[in-house]
């Protein structure tokens, strides 16, 4: 078992509030009961305790690294390459009708 002591900087040491977690659950489109929010709050606070160690690192002048290889995004020719497979794709959809995906009504 690793014994690991996250750097505890008071300025950054954080504990998430119930409101924070409710907001994140809403943004992430996850329905959660008050009890689940509470469990998530305690577990996420523990994980952020681990993450906070980053805040003590001086990264002035360091360029962010978004990708493992420094290569430019490849572009392809603007032409149709895929065949229409609507039936195959819709065969595994939860609800379809007349070639359309059905969802609850959003506009009255």
């Amino acid at each position: 078992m690793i014994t690991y002591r996250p750097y505890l900087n008071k300025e950054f040491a954080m504990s998430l509030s119930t409101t924070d977690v409710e907001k994140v659950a809403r943004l992430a489109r996850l329905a959660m009961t008050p009890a689940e929010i509470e469990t998530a709050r305690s577990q996420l606070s523990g994980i952020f305790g681990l993450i906070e160690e980053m805040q003590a690192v001086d990264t002035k002048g360091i360029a962010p690294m978004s990708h493992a290889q420094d290569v430019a995004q490849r572009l392809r020719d603007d032409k149709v390459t895929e065949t229409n497979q609507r039936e195959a794709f819709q065969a595994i959809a939860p609800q379809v009708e007349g070639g359309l995906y059905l969802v609850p009504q959003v506009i009255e």
Partner: protein
Amino acid sequence: MIESSLSQMGAALRAKKISSVELTQLYLDRMAKLNPELNAYITIRPEASLAQAKAADARIAAGTAEALTGIPFGQKDIFCAKDWLTTCGSKMLHNFVSPYDAHVISQFNNAGAVNLGKTNMDEFAMGSSNETSHYGIVKNPWDKARVPGGSSGGTASAIAARLCAAATGTDTGGSIRQPAALCGISGLKPTYGVVSRYGMIAFASSLDQAGPMGRNAEDLALMLNTMAGFDERDSTSLQREKEDYARDLNKPLNGLRIGIPKEFFAEGLGSDVAKAVEAAIAEYKKLGAVIVDISLPNTRLSIPVYYVLAPAEASSNLSRFDGVRYGYRAPEYTDLADMYEKSRAQGFGAEVQRRIMIGTYVLSHGYYDAYYLQAQKIRRLIAQDFVEAYKHCDVIMGPTSPSTAFKLGEKGDDPVQMYLSDIYTIAVNLAGLPGMSIPCGFGDNDMPVGLQIIGNYFDEARMLNVAHQYQLATDWHSRAPQGI
């Protein structure tokens, strides 16, 4: 036959000493006997596998067989395979029969290989113990009370139990190397961009990489020859000359410079693991290698950086699962937002929801600079550590995992403890380097220990050479669990 290497199996098939149908049936019989307890496979379709075997036999008879033709492989359930249930270990995809093949699956199909089944995994590859799968825990064949590791735990368990000749895995933070170590097999995560991610269900796109898992380095080289290569359907697939990854297997290791990072042998490493790894390094000295002390000073930061970047990418990738076009939809809901929220809450397991929430939080307004941007900057520092280290050595070696396989349920309630078990593997993904794990002995409770070999970018052929030479001199890789 099940102890033969892939090249021996291929030769036996081409010499018609055994047919692919016979070989496939041999594995299917073993799976019928052992899989109910190990749970290494989620989906098995004997008719489909045998149909492929029959086609392979026809190809062998026609004299157009390739190296892997007729050999039965397991495929991690993260790869979409046409007409196969493809669940990614999640309830969210419990009914997803893929309408298309992932690039990796096409490559195996084109080579005439047989798909034996879809191997179990942590849900959406998020886990280090295979305990987050919706389809049940996987057991380690060396001790069925212990985890096989994760997320490619089903693949590792199946290989150790000889329920396939070899199988595929994917590695975002150690998901090939750690289960390989815990199950006493070999596994290789290639350089980022070497194997196409097309049709491989995305977890963290800037880190995900598919690779081969098997019983020895020679087998991995053959598999990588089939798996690697440019694919225009993956925008991060690298355009490179095709190479033969087996070309250097037999080179001697005289003068090989092995870098040993002191951070990998610091506090937290199990003494049984340290002992086995140190013995392996001593063996390499006998084979002519030179040991160089190096430092990867930012190693401990790789965990916080990873647990910002991977969840951030995952929260974005997993937003596609909304119950509209495929996958799980909640049975009852009031409106569209309610349908999204209930489908996702019921379809995703606890660990996946946890990571989506971390990712959503670190990307949310007001926190982006402090978390996501800061993590990306430290990611560069971690990658630079390796660039500096490779000025002084050819490969880097150390333990794959700080401990041998832990008991099922042991770390279940504490996500932080589970995350810490990836300390030696994560930095490799952040840098985009190739890494592998090979068996190098046994620790406490007679559980296997893995030696990690980290290579420089595109140095897979050398790493396979380094592993193969060790496997010629030792026999850890050919040990099998009792009762197998």
